[in-house]
């Protein structure tokens, strides 16, 4: 049975809470001079990235090593995939070397779900196409909780290319389970109306000012040029209508925070002034990424 982490949608609130609570313990560990633990000593995880990634791959690798596990990282360009091997065969080959988990990023939505049906090895989804990126939502939740103590009743604006964002989907599922009020905002062509039906507590707007008004959390998404198959909006107008600037922040709650999953495009979806402002918690998100991934790895591997 494959008991990895494929997405946030199938998890219940208690499971998510347990991971977030455990991540808090690991935050404390990160402030100690010797951070390495041996909870997962002798275990092996494979980091298999079919898409470019710096922060997520490094974050998982550091998380695994801090728990004492051995981590092997593979990128698709140097792998047998470029020799025409099918995805199932690649994964079966790796699974035959008996790793304890495979951490995987892939450009196709559902790729890890498809593999989980055939492989005994737990798969941790590090981002699948435009579907989910569960550990990103977990680290975002941890970051909000660090500032506000609760998710319940918070007004969270998620702004950008929602249609193509796995970060947005995982955050929507997570925040909804915890009773946040979610306002999604972006160009109408990147904001399918059905988003309001996938989970409770979701509202849509095409106006960034409406989205930010009284927001407790402003979550900006990267403009994903690599997923744009066509011109869904006039590129020259994006920053004017959907870029976050200092003037917008006055509309939000006084203690609002600004988040971004990175990598940020200064001057495209977020102005430099906002990215570097006191309200920005972008680097806290990165820091929490390691703690949350330690909690996830411990939960999946520690039980075996």
């Amino acid at each position, binding site marked *: 049975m494959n008991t990895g982490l494929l997405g946030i*949608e199938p998890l219940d609130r208690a499971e998510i809470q347990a991971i977030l609570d455990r991540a808090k313990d690991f935050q404390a560990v990160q402030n100690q001079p010797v951070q390495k633990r041996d909870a997962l000593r002798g275990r092996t995880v494979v980091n298999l990235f079919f898409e470019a990634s710096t922060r997520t791959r490094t974050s998982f690798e550091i998380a695994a090593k801090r728990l004492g596990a051995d981590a092997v990282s593979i990128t698709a360009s140097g792998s047998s995939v470029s020799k025409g091997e*099918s*995805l*199932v065969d690649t994964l079966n080959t790796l699974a035959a070397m008996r790793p304890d988990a495979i951490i995987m990023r*892939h450009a*196709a*939505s*559902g*790729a890890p*779900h*498809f593999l989980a049906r*055939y492989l005994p090895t737990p798969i941790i989804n590090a981002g*699948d*196409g*435009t*579907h*989910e990126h569960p550990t990103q939502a977990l680290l975002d939740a941890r970051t909000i909780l660090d500032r506000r103590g609760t998710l319940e009743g918070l007004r969270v604006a998620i702004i950008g290319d929602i*249609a193509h964002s*796995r970060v947005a*989907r995982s955050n929507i599922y997570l925040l909804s389970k915890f009773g946040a009020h979610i306002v999604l905002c972006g160009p109408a062509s990147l904001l*399918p109306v*059905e*988003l309001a*039906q*996938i989970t409770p507590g979701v509202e849509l707007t095409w106006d960034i000012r409406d989205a930010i008004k009284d927001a407790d959390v402003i979550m900006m998404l990267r403009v994903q040029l690599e997923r744009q*198959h066509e011109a869904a909006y006039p590129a020259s107008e994006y920053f004017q209508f959907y870029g976050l600037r200092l003037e917008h922040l006055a509309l939000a709650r006084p203690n609002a925070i600004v988040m971004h999953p990175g990598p940020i495009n200064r001057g495209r979806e977020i102005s430099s002034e906002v990215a570097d402002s006191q309200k920005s918690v972008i680097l806290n998100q990165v820091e929490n990424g390691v703690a949350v991934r330690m909690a996830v790895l411990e939960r999946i591997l520690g039980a075996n």
Partner: protein
Amino acid sequence: MARIVIKNGRVVDPANNIDGIRDVALEDGVIAEVAPDIDATGAEEFDASGLVVAPGFIDMHVHLREPGFEYAETIESGSRAAAAGGFTSVCPMPNTSPVNDNATVTRYIVETAWRVAPVNVFPIGAITMNSAGEQLSAIGSMKQAGIVAISDDGRPVMNARVMRRAMEFAKAFNLPVIDHCEDLNLSAGGDMHEGRESVRLGLRGIPAASEDVMVARDILLAEVTGARYHVAHISSHHAVEMVAFAKARGLAVTCEATPHHFALTDADMPPFDSNYKMKPPLRACCDVDAVVGGIVSGAVDAIATDHAPHAGSDKMQEFEKCPFGIIGLETALALALEKLVHTDRIPLARMVELFTWGPARILKLDRGTLSPGSTADVTIFDLDRLWTYDVNRSCSKSRNSPFHGHSFRGGPVATIVNGAVVWSVQ
């Protein structure tokens, strides 16, 4: 003289308004008589007590993959699956390799079928050369070689002017034009129906509008040209409405529905299961309701499977890489019973019509009835036998069915083609 008497069955023959206990006598490959208490002395007797005896089922939309893709299906394996599903005739679409766009390929299919197929095979020819949507194919000589319709199934003719010319030309050869209605610009990159489920799963959507705009275009062209026009695998509620509208205007417009489009919605798909990936995609419940509504009201003329075999290795990939299509010959009748007859949406005779007289009329086939003198194609099935579909025992060479493991009530019992029993249930 080969004589078979099918005794005591419930004979359902919609073309002749028969639904009652009768005997059916077959002699030398033709229907000799349909009457009570036919003397079976000297004849082979088939006891059909408790069973339904219907004209042979016609599937006007299948893919047999030969020539070119024999690893997925052959004329022989696909027509064996047809026989096992109760079908006595199938119409293979032209998207083979080479494409069936000339009489040589048509003759290859027809002659191979004579040799190896237990059922009748009536090919459908391409509308355009190589189904590229530009030059008209050799429609007249393909008709002489045996095609019963033209279609660029799967690669719809995007150029309205080419479609208009095809409709005009086909009219003179009395061939219906069948369109797989999909505006390829609107559907580009899509993997499943555009709606709540595609948004939830982060899969690119195929909007219902991509089907609707082509149905609308084609109906307008059918009116201009006076052609016989047929919508393949109708799946959206607007498309059903438009076909009903065209019929009300007296146009020669017909359509077919597949079992999966009246049995499943997009929400029935287990996450990212490629055995649920086909075109048109499984749509929302309002669309499925409209397709069933069209079957009830008469807007839908035929049930066709769009049997589309794909090798396991092709379907065992990332969802977005998997080819579209599922096999369906062996589950079609049971799904129609489950979703339409057992639920009292339509009477049994209407279901039989959708499998027989309905497609026969569209294609002008001299089949689909039990009228004395017609070809002795007979489908015998049962309404209540409980059975479970095991796709690993399918006669098809492929295994891409979403109905593996599904339990059914009722299904085919025996298939008779040209007076000979070609398949019977074990």
